[in-house]
């Protein structure tokens, strides 16, 4: 199986190929999502497949980035995500364009996954970025667009799970817990693992108040009452309470917009903390064990490219949406059966086929034998 002895039809790990109906279903999903993005007046951007590697440096994805050396000796990388690329373009090419800038994308990203993990290296993402807008209004808008995507796709039972990184950060502020211990603690909060959180905090550092608050954080998920509970429990931390208040404002807006049933709170959602600075959310639906997509606020990223401005975005994974709809039995229209046109002289047959095409028919051209 190694070296040059593998057959030419062997597939390298991590790539996929979609044929016929499967490809068409993905195209239909993509078109539906794009129609929603366009409907909210986002503009499409088709960024390059690769760029200088330092555009993507610094994030969680850096170790998963495929990089290579260009002919001129510069280090280049295949895009592992769209957001940093769009931030760069907004700060550079679009620097003269006034904020807010609304952009959407749809395409592949490439990430190195160890072969034994059996994960895909090539992921198709559909997402948008709202750059430089008023924060709370932009948060609410992006969540409303995400909700409409799920509605338009015909998914059922989906929820938007909302959190805010300022809650965890606020509680740990000045606690003296940092570095790898903070990373472990975050991992345990992420896993909603109160026993694991106690274990980390038992090594000292944090006050009893902070310890209890972080343990509490692992269970603060559910309906909007969670926010009131958090506000009381975290009374000692002005920044944690500030984050809760911010979240409350967004939740109220979405409740006002008829999305109350679709919202759940998840204050223990602390993934991607190096990157996100405010609201974070994930889309979950019954039938798929992992999130369908997600997003959040990243107010610090644009400054890296020299145009500091707040930003919020979200993304849906096409593979995950396709799998979810398949598992939920959501219908994607089938291709119509073709009309077979042929026989009676090639020129005449081709003319009839062209006429049927002009009338909008799906035509299979052939001579009737082995068409």
């Amino acid at each position: 199986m190694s070296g040059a002895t593998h057959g030419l039809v062997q597939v390298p790990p991590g790539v996929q190929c979609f044929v016929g109906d499967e490809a068409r279903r993905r195209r239909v999903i993509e078109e539906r999502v794009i129609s929603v993005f366009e409907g909210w007046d986002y503009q499409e951007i088709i960024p390059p497949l690769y760029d200088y590697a330092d555009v993507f440096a610094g994030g969680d994805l850096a170790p998963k980035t495929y990089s290579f050396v260009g002919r001129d000796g510069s280090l280049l990388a295949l895009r592992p995500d769209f957001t940093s690329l769009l931030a760069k373009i907004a700060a550079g090419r679009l620097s003269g364009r006034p904020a807010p800038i609304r952009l959407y994308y749809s395409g592949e990203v490439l990430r190195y996954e160890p072969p034994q993990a059996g994960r895909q290296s090539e992921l198709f993402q559909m997402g948008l970025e709202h750059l430089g807008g008023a924060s709370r209004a932009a948060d609410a808008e992006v969540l409303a667009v995400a909700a409409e995507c799920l509605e338009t796709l015909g998914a059922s039972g989906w929820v938007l799970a909302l959190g805010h990184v300022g809650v965890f950060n606020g509680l740990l502020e000045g606690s003296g817990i940092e570095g790898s211990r903070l990373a472990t603690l975050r991992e345990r909060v992420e896993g909603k693992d109160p026993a694991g959180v106690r274990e980390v905090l038992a090594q000292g550092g944090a006050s009893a108040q902070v310890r209890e608050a972080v343990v509490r954080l692992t269970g603060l998920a559910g309906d909007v009452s969670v926010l009131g509970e958090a506000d009381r429990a975290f009374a000692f931390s002005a920044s944690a309470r500030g984050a809760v208040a911010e979240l409350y404002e967004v939740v109220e807006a979405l409740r006002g917009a008829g999305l109350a049933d679709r919202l759940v709170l998840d204050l223990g959602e602390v993934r991607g903390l190096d990157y996100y600075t405010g609201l974070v959310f994930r889309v979950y639906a019954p039938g798929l064990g992992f999130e369908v997509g997600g997003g959040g606020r990243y107010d610090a990223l644009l400054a890296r490219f020299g145009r500091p401005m707040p930003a919020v975005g979200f993304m849906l994974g096409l593979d995950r949406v396709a799998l979810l709809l398949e598992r939920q039995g959501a219908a994607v229209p089938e291709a119509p059966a073709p009309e077979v046109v042929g026989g009676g002289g090639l020129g005449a047959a081709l003319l009839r086929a062209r006429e049927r095409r002009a009338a909008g028919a799906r035509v299979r051209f052939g001579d009737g034998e082995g068409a």
Partner: protein
Amino acid sequence: MSLTVALSKGKLLAGSEALFRKAGLPFPGKEGRRLVVALDGLRFLFVKDMDVPTYVEHGVADVGVAGRDVLLESDCDVYQPLDLGFGRCRLVVARQKGSGADLSRASTLRVATKYPRVTAAHFLEQGVSVEVVKLAGSVEIAPGLGLADCIVDVVETGRTLEENGLEAVAEVASSSARLIVNRASYHARRGEVSGLLEALRKAAP
């Protein structure tokens, strides 16, 4: 649609059964060898203990019972909101009793274990180069036969170590049974999951 519960066929089965019964939840009897059993609104999957986190991570099961040792090794992305209090054990480094050899003097330590991920992480964190020899069981005999310098394995009472002439020299982690929950089920099937979670929380010591 009923909730699906993944359970280990192994050492955590008796404890899981006792806890489910104490919590007033259904639990299949010992009839037959069926691996998927539907009972009173729950569906049970009986799988290998190392596979429980995988079933839950992928959402094939909504909840499961898994040892923390297994969770550390599998590195699956699941919630673990409840320490169920049974199945307590320790994951330790053990070597031949009285060998007197200084483990830190080996340039590369050969370690036999069923837990390659946890083992590699444990030694590398301490700055020790390690060659992990992955075994599926009977790990205790590896040092005596010269397959490894030491082992990393779970101990409950320490009797198996004792009987094979080994002694524990360091603890890697402590473990007990955890209730694990799929991330999507936790949020999107909140009502059913929290019902089960609360029943088990009340019953757990």
